[in-house]
C-alpha cells in the first residue's frame, strides 16, 4: 500500500510540474502584458517620441546641426494631430547634495514636458519659460528624500552640479518609470532647456516628445514630422517610438520565455502521462482478482474501464491541483521579483485543471481498455 502511494506520487510529479508550468506561463504573461499596459495608464498612449542624430559633423560645414526652440514650434504645427511637443536634453553630470555626490541625471526641457510626461508637482512649481538660462530646478522624489534625510524642506535649498548651484523651486511626485520614456525622473533634476547649454557645450536637442490628439494617424504624423525635419535639419537620421511598439516589444520578449515554458510544461505532461499510464498498467495487473470478482458479480466491460479511467483522472487531477497551486506561487514569486502587480486570473487555473484531466483521460485510456478486455476466469483463477 505504501509503495503504491509512493509510486503514484512519483508518477504525478510530472503532471504537477507540467500543470504548474502552464499555469505560471499564462498567468505571468498576463501579468507582464498588464504591467506593460499599466505603464501607459497614467502616461496615456497618444504619444510619439522622436530621437534624431545629425549626420553632419559639427565643424564640417555651415549647415545647421542642432534645432532651436523656434524650430520645435514649427514641428508642433506641422501636423494638426500634434497637440503639444516638448524637446529634452539629458546630461549626466555628478551632483553634490550636502557635500555628498549623488548619481542622477539632468533633464533640460520646456514647460510642455510636465504635461506630456505627466510629471506631478508635489511642492513648489515646475520650471517655466521665464526661468530660461537661470539656475532653477525641479527635483525628483529620490533626490527630495536626500533633503528630507537631513530634515530640510527642499524648496529654496541648493544643490551643486559642476561649478553651478541650482536653487530648488519644485519637488516632483514619485514618477512611474516606463519603457517608453527611458528616463529616471525620480533621480533627476529638471532644469530649463536653455540652462543645459551653460552646463555643456554639446547639449543639443536630440529628443522630442509629442502628445497627439485622440485617434492619431501615426504614419501620417510621422510623415509630416519627417518632412518638416528634413527642412529644418537636413541629413538627419530620425527614429520614432510610440507606446504601441513598446507593448508589442514586451510581448515579443515574452515569446521566447513562453516557448521555453510551453516546452517544459509539454515535456513534463508527456512524461507525467506516461508515468500515470505505467502505474495504471501495473495496477490493472495487480488488481486482476478484483476485476474478475467485479465481472462475476455483474460489472460490464464499460464499468471496468470506467473504474480505471476515473482512477487515472483522479491521479492526474490531484497532480493538477498541486500544479495549479505551485503555478500560482511561481507566478506570485515572478510578480514579486519583477515588481509587477499580482492579479489572480481564473483562466490559467481552469486551464490547468482541464489539462490535467485531459492527460488523465489520455493516459488512463489504454490501461482501462486493457482491464476491460480481461477474461474473468483467468482473473479469478490466479
Amino acid at each position: 500500500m505504501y509503495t503504491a502511494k509512493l509510486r503514484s506520487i512519483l508518477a504525478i510529479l510530472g503532471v504537477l510540474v507540467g500543470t504548474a508550468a502552464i499555469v505560471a506561463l499564462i498567468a505571468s504573461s498576463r501579468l507582464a502584458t498588464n504591467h506593460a499596459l499599466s505603464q501607459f495608464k497614467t502616461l496615456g498612449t497618444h504619444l510619439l517620441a522622436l530621437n534624431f542624430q545629425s549626420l553632419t559633423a559639427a565643424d564640417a560645414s555651415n549647415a545647421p546641426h542642432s534645432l532651436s526652440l523656434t524650430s520645435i514650434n514649427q514641428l508642433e504645427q506641422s501636423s494638426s494631430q500634434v497637440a503639444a511637443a516638448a524637446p529634452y536634453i539629458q546630461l549626466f553630470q555628478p551632483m553634490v547634495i550636502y557635500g555628498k555626490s549623488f548619481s542622477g541625471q539632468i533633464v533640460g526641457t520646456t514647460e510642455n514636458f510636465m504635461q506630456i510626461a505627466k510629471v506631478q508637482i508635489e511642492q513648489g512649481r515646475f520650471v517655466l519659460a521665464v526661468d530660461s538660462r537661470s539656475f532653477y530646478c525641479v527635483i525628483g522624489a529620490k533626490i527630495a528624500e536626500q533633503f528630507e534625510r537631513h530634515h530640510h524642506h527642499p524648496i529654496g535649498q541648493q544643490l551643486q552640479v559642476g561649478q553651478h548651484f541650482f536653487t530648488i523651486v519644485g519637488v516632483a511626485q514619485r514618477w512611474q518609470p516606463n519603457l517608453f520614456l527611458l528616463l529616471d525622473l525620480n533621480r533627476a533634476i529638471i532644469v530649463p532647456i536653455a540652462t543645459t547649454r551653460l552646463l555643456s557645450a554639446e547639449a543639443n536637442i536630440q529628443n522630442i516628445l509629442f502628445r497627439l490628439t485622440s485617434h492619431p494617424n501615426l504614419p501620417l504624423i510621422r510623415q509630416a514630422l519627417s518632412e518638416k525635419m528634413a527642412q529644418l535639419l537636413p541629413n538627419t537620421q530620425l527614429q520614432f517610438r510610440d507606446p504601441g511598439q513598446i507593448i508589442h516589444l514586451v510581448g515579443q520578449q515574452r515569446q521566447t520565455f513562453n516557448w521555453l515554458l510551453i516546452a517544459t510544461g509539454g515535456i513534463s505532461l508527456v512524461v507525467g502521462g506516461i508515468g500515470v499510464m505505467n502505474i495504471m498498467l501495473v495496477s490493472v495487473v495487480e488488481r486482476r482478482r478484483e476485476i474478475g470478482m467485479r465481472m462475476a458479480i455483474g460489472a460490464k466491460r464499460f464499468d471496468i474501464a470506467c473504474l480505471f479511467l476515473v482512477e487515472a483522472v483522479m491521479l492526474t487531477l490531484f497532480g493538477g491541483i498541486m500544479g495549479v497551486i505551485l503555478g500560482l506561487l511561481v507566478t506570485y514569486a515572478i510578480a514579486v521579483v519583477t515588481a509587477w502587480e499580482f492579479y489572480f486570473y481564473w483562466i490559467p487555473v481552469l486551464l490547468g485543471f482541464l489539462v490535467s484531466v485531459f492527460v488523465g483521460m489520455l493516459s488512463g485510456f489504454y490501461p482501462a481498455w486493457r482491464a476491460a478486455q480481461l477474461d474473468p476466469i483467468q482473473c479469478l483463477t490466479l
Partner: protein
Amino acid sequence: MIKFTEITKTFRFSHGVYQALRGVSFEIKTGETVAVIGPSGSGKTTTMNIMGLLDRPTSGEYLLNNQSVSYLSFQEKAVLRNKMIGFVFQSFNLLPLMTALQNVMLTLHYAGVKPLLAREKALYHLEQVGMRDYASHRPSELSGGQQQRVAIARALVNDPLLILADEPSGALDSHTSGQVMEVLLGHGGQTTIVIITHDEEVARMCARQIPIRDGVVAL
C-alpha cells in the same frame, strides 16, 4: 432450472489441445442443493465456469431458467450474472478498502439499484448471515469465517436464482467451515445452490452430489 446437455469444453494451447469436458449432461431443479464433486483436474471448475456464465462451452447446450444461454455475448452474460447468479469464492474476494456493507452493496451497484435502497437490502442480508454488527468493518478486521459470510451476503443480496460456490470452505478450518455451510445452505427457499468441492463432509451436507471425473459425469 439448470440443464446441461452434452457440454464439451476444449482448451487449445500452442503445444496441443486439452479436453476438459467431454460431454457433461445433468439437470438441477429449482431450490435443490447440489454438490459437484471430483478430484482436481476432473473438470469441475470448468463446469462451474460455464454454469456461472464466465465461460462458454465448445459445444452442447446450457439452459438456465429454461433459456438457452450457451452462446450469449459478454454484455448479456454480465447482466444475467448480476441478476440471476450469486458467486461465493474460496478466497472470499472482498475488496480490502471497502467496508462489509460496501462490499455487499457492490452487487446492487452493478444492478443499478439506488444507493439508499441498496443500503437497506445489504443491511438486511448482512443480518441474515449474522454480520449486521460488522457492517462498518473492513475485511482485514474480520476472521475468515466472517469474511466468507459477508461474501455470502454479497451473493444473496440481489435475490439470485442460483448460488454458485467454489470451495466455499476451502480456506477455513472444519469448525468454521461447518458454520459457513449452515449459513449458505440455511438460506433455503427457492434459491438453487451449487457447491463445487472436493470435501466429502461438505458434499454430504447437500441434498445431491454430481461426481465429475475426467470430464464426464461419473454416476
